[in-house]
């Protein structure tokens, strides 16, 4: 799949569709491919961090650095798989799983107090002090029945976030 040709065959489309569990239609995959080729400037077959950052809307997102760690050097198949969590057809579980991955930067399957603090720091920047962030987090954790020392697993995330409807859908523009 990482070829430089800008033409997708039907076979390629089906392969990608399978890889993302049919969460995108074939037309959406073609659209995504056009976008991929636009971002991948020298048709290397993958998109580098720099090329992602050339999208100003992405560069100014507070979580851009975290997301870059997940998508740096990504090829088309994985690009589609990554974005499939944002499909309207994706399950709540799938979306929460992505959120968990964003928090769990060291990929040890556990999200510690420190991990959440770091994400909070990305989101609030210089507008909250470290003490304020710690205080807020300790308080809400306690109220939810966790402590500062507890590490949250994916199941915990599902328990906490699965209650309400997650609004995490992105529409793929199709010509």
């Amino acid at each position, binding site marked *: 799949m990482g070829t430089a040709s800008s033409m997708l065959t039907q076979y390629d489309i089906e392969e990608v569709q399978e890889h993302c569990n049919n969460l995108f239609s074939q037309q959406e995959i073609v659209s995504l491919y056009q976008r991929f080729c*636009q*971002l991948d*400037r020298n048709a290397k077959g993958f998109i580098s961090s720099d090329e992602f950052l*050339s999208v100003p*809307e992405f560069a*100014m997102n507070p*979580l*851009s650095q975290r997301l870059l760690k997940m998508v740096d050097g990504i090829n088309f198949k994985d690009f589609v798989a990554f974005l499939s969590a944002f499909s309207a057809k994706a399950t709540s579980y799938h979306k929460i799983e992505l959120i968990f991955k964003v928090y769990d930067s060291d990929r040890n399957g556990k999200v510690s107090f420190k991990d959440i603090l770091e994400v909070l720091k990305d989101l609030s920047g210089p507008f*909250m002090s470290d003490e304020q962030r710690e205080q807020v987090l300790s308080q809400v954790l306690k109220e939810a029945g966790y402590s500062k020392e507890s590490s949250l697993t994916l199941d915990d995330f599902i328990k*906490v976030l699965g209650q309400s409807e997650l609004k995490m859908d992105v529409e793929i523009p199709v010509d």
Partner: protein
Amino acid sequence: MRKNNPKSQSTELELDQPNIEDYLPDGHPIHQEPRGKLRLCDLLDISPTLSEAAGAIVDDSFLRCFKSIPSEPWNWNVYLFPLWCFGVVVRYFVLFPARVLLLSFGWMIFLSAFIPVHLLLKRDNNLRKNIEVFFVASWTGVVKYHGPRPSMRPKQVFVANHTSMIDFIVLEQMTAFAVIMQKHPGWVGLLQNTILESVGCIWFNRTEAKDREIVARKLREHVQGADNNPLLIFPEGTCVNNHYSVMFKKGAFELGCTVCPVAIKYNKIFVDAFWNSRKQSFTKHLLQLMTSWAVVCDVWYLEPQNQKPGETSIEFAERVREIISQRAGLKMVPWDGYLKYSRPSPKLKEGKQRDFADLVLRRLEEK
């Protein structure tokens, strides 16, 4: 009185601009209605921010401005295809050599007269007009001018949307202008140094940080000079694909002059005049133009505008941009064209961070 204080020159992009949030896709607002006490799920739920990031990855209003939008090929048909082939032969082997000859001829006349003339007169408008006629004829430009021809007055600058290097030539044909352009390498740079300098053009270099002050000063000096050619400025600062317009830089609007907007719209019927500097060099672009049937465009001279009392330079710039965009059928986007070459200022990110922090702290108070 200017609102913005002169800051010390920084290497980052100073995006002093109207509220960008007004323009951005109104997807999921990052702040939902505060619903009582802050809970763990509210803190952990980063879905709005993630959605915005994914939305930007999938499609964004900035890169759209620089995408070459291809036209539909019409020749895939039994009888149209040979017709198209015949057309190719005519364009490459008849039109192109004719144009090259015309251009060379024009250059020869120009150069043989230029050197003595340049030494004798400061600027020779007629001579330059002739070379431009050859230039425009060399790619068979079909330009239709609308609107009253601008009268030459002092304290007046012209601003136009920018699609290609030939914008300048198209406008020069009608009136003599002094333009401010990016310094280019190669043969274009040579051209800039020799001939264009004689008509009073000003250079800038977008990569140099201190350049903005120098350029601002040069602009002011030029405008004050009585015999200088009227100044033509492309406030977008970069070539855009003629379907969108990016933010106008305020430099042209702070000179205390009347601003005359000019709108240029190219018709892509034969060739796309948009010079995608990422995809091709200017030489290649020029060759593409010269082997096409014609470059067709409309130029509208619009009503001169003055800064309204109480209006900042940025608001003035945006107002003029709206006038031009409406006339030329361009969609406005809130991005600075220079983002093509550098990263956005951290100030943009900080806006979002501040909103988040405010929301959390506010909800924390609620018991």
